[in-house]
């Protein structure tokens, strides 16, 4: 709205009054009303409540615990741990996955409801890392389950894991669930 220095006629004065009323109504509503698409509003909710499975396999689990701790505080991004896979949107593969463990992780992943996301945390989960020379270590969790975000490091710092979560939130926000995918022939 433009500002006017002085008011000349009564009519003009009235229109001014209406405008002021409209403006204040808009101001009041702007905190409460949001015009957006349904996809965006769904994604906003999903991105800010990524509940992760309380599950760690190796060294990175300690850093995962410390990320949930008071300093890094993953809770402020709406991410809290759940002890059962049936309530989770996200599984953080924190640490080395051995061949003996791989099938169990697949079961845990299958138990999670759709849509579900995977963060692979640390070099071991990404590609085998240091234990590439061994005989019993899976060389990358992506051989078993699909991965959304890879966080490098051995182990990654809590800041790195937080960044990984933010990247995943970006990914979730850009998804479109209500539009049907075009089938490729």
């Amino acid at each position, binding site marked *: 709205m433009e500002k006017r220095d002085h008011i000349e006629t009564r009519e003009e004065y009235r229109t001014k009054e209406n405008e002021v009323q409209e403006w204040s109504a808009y101001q009041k509503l702007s905190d409460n009303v949001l015009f957006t698409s349904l996809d965006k509003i769904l994604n906003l909710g999903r991105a800010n409540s990524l509940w992760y499975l309380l599950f760690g396999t190796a060294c990175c689990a300690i850093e995962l615990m410390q990320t949930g701790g008071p300093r890094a505080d993953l809770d402020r991004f709406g991410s809290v741990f759940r002890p059962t896979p049936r309530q989770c949107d996200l599984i953080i593969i924190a640490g080395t996955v051995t061949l003996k463990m791989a099938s169990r992780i697949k079961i845990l992943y299958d138990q999670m409801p759709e849509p579900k996301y995977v963060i692979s945390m640390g070099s071991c989960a990404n590609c085998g890392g240091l234990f590439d*020379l061994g005989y019993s270590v899976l060389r990358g969790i992506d051989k*078993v389950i699909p991965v959304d975000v890879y966080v490098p490091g051995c182990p990654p710092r809590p800041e790195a894991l937080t960044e990984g979560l933010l990247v995943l939130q970006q990914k979730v926000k850009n998804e479109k669930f209500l539009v049907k995918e075009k089938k490729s022939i």
Partner: protein
Amino acid sequence: METLHTRLQEKFPNAQVTFANLEAGDHYIIVDTAHLHSIISYLKIDEHYTILMCLSGAEDSEFLQSVYHLFSESSRKKVTLKVRLPKDNPEVETIGDLWPGAYFFEREAYDLFGIIYKNHPDLRRIMLPEDWIGHPLRKNYIDPIQYQDINNERAYPCDVPNVTEKK
């Protein structure tokens, strides 16, 4: 330790007890497989080597070994005993009746080296899954690249010389 060795020879005249002196580190006593259990129980009861520090498998060029590190709290002395086992039939008596904690260490040696401990109540694999093939800490072990339905190939070839893989 040399005096202990002579004492053992006097006590067990039929057993082959040899003392190995190496360039560096600890010395050890090589014991006959058949007399291992009686020698260790003699050491525990009469010589007061009451603590079993470690039990492990090992391999030298021709034999598999089962190694026992004993410690005496009263005299603060350590002794290392070894038995040499042939690679095709590695069998030795368990010492779990003297130290029940040894059962788990023996299971580990069985899993990783294939040493069979006689009279062990529960000799199963401990580290690796039941359907694993081979005993990985043996020198001629070949790393698997396929386990069940998981293809565990490397993205890049490995440049460490003593890693052998199945192709």
